[in-house]
């Protein structure tokens, strides 16, 4: 009798144990896509396709590299951290897709969040060997740490001349007074709620609309500011504000 009871308990343990295993280590795939408004952008558009921003600047894109970090999935049961940082490079197909593993709890009401750039806490000079090797550092005289983004290309200026632009986002720094250096964390968190994480090996697709860097809330005219932006405190604040709506959630399927 006693043995039978033990046996039932034993079976129950196995049963629930197995059930728990369904929520074990799963794979989540991320795919980053890029667009100009509704027009998709891929590697083959680099240096080829012309775009026009809200200020009427006609521009092309030579290079787009940016960093996201602190990828998290949150639902009623808690928060799952999915890795540290990912350097996305439009010219490198492999970098646009990456995989994270974790003990994912499936839920229709998952909140996906990630940070554009690195938080102050994580933005420590020289400590990430992958980013050093990728030459993504910020000089010490500009506060050190890492770029959040390098968006480079050229545009036609008001006098019809071809001009380069280096739209580089970093932690804002004002070092005009060397005794009173001001820095502001201009990285920002992007959040999408009600994401349906329905199964293992799901692919979450997120889009960056590059045109949004030049608008909303601030209108950016490349004639007024196009290069030397890393050391420009105000420019960094404006970029960060505009960045808040460059990302959108496309799908989880």
């Amino acid at each position, binding site marked *: 009798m006693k043995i039978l009871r033990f046996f039932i308990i034993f079976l129950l343990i196995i049963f629930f144990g197995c059930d728990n295993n369904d929520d074990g280590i799963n794979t989540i795939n991320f795919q980053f896509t890029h667009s100009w408004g509704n027009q998709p952008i891929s590697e083959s558009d*680099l*240096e*080829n396709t012309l775009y026009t921003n809200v200020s009427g600047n006609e521009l092309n894109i*030579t*290079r787009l590299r940016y960093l996201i970090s602190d990828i998290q999935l949150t639902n009623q049961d808690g928060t799952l951290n999915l890795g540290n940082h990912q350097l996305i490079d439009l010219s490198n197909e492999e970098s646009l897709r990456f995989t994270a593993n974790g003990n994912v709890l499936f839920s229709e009401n998952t909140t996906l969040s990630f940070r554009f750039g690195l938080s102050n806490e994580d933005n420590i*000079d*020289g400590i990430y*060997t*992958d980013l*050093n*090797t*990728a*030459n993504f*550092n910020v*000089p*010490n*005289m*500009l506060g050190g740490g890492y770029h959040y983004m*390098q968006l*480079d*290309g*050229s545009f036609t200026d008001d006098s019809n*001349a*071809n*001009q*380069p*632009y*280096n739209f580089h986002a970093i932690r804002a720094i004002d070092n005009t007074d060397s005794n009173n250096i001001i820095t502001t964390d201009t990285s920002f968190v992007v959040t999408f709620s009600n994401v349906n994480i329905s199964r293992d090996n799901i692919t979450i697709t997120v889009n960056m609309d590059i045109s949004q860097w030049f608008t909303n809330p601030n209108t950016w005219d490349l004639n007024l500011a196009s*290069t*030397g932006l*890393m*050391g420009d405190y105000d420019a960094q604040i404006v970029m960060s504000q505009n960045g808040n709506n460059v990302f959108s959630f496309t799908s989880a399927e």
Partner: protein
Amino acid sequence: MQRSLIIFFFSIVIVSCGSNNSEEYTPVPVNLQIPELFQQRLINPLIPTDNPLTEEGISLGKKLFFDRRLSKNNSKSCASCHNPNNAFTDVAQFSVGVDGQIGTRNSMPLFNLAWNFNERFAWDGSELSLERQALEPITNPIEMDSDWQDVLDKLQQDSEYPNLFFQAFGTNIIDSDLVVKAIAQFERTLISGSSKFDRYLQGNAELTSEELNGFNVFMDEDRGDCFHCHGSDNNPLWTDNSFHNNGLNATFTDLGLGAITGDPNDNGKFKSPSLRNLAFTAPYMHDGRFATLEEVINFYSEGLQISSTIDPLMKKANQGGVQLSDQDKADLKAFLLTLSDNEFINNPDFRE
């Protein structure tokens, strides 16, 4: 008569047994000696799984690298154009091949090659691994102008090589695959990481105020802005190993990467060279057009040429360049020279 035949037979057996016994295939694995600074700042170097480093492989590769028999008329080795005294490049604008022919590219220094993670070698990225690269000079008419079968015959008939190949790879049948594997192993050991600036970063050397200002010119977005392509204190390779048009020409005679990819947007793009060891590697650029660092710095300061594919990071190109003051130019040069590594060019492991 019969007796002497028997003795002859036995002596053959004995001799051949003897030579077989002296050959044992037990290559000793080698871990690269990675400088501390590289360990701290960079990801681990790339060693292909099908060509692990061994003592025997490296020393065989070194012997091959310095062996003139790899060329048609036994006149040139790899080292003829990749001389240890010059950080493994040569002093000519265009290297001279075995028959006196002259190419159109400046030879390249060889060091820290295992950290070139996209594995595109040569100025135009045409060579997709060190192993594959090493196949090319042997038959290239403007380099060693030889024929693989010829080279393999010479090596096979040599008194030492078959045994050395056996020790390194477990076979004394020499083929081109094993030759280039051995050479690539040797090349991966060519690590340069003890310049004055490396020692400065580790707190073991002081920079002069000129050198320090030069470093600041290099890092300053408003002055040199060199770090976006050429590394920094956090990237001691001093290159991004990537391809750019840095504004040398308004029109292209040498298409560079564009000739390899077939994409006109790549025309005029060449690999950013490392700025280590510039003291030994003149002349400069893919076509060796600049004999001195002053010329290079003047070029970046006021000599840039506009073209369709010029990199947007050459942001002052419309004004001719970054417009450095004479003091900043001199200091930039002084800083660049702190990246030169005398220990590297004097390392006995890397010499014949």
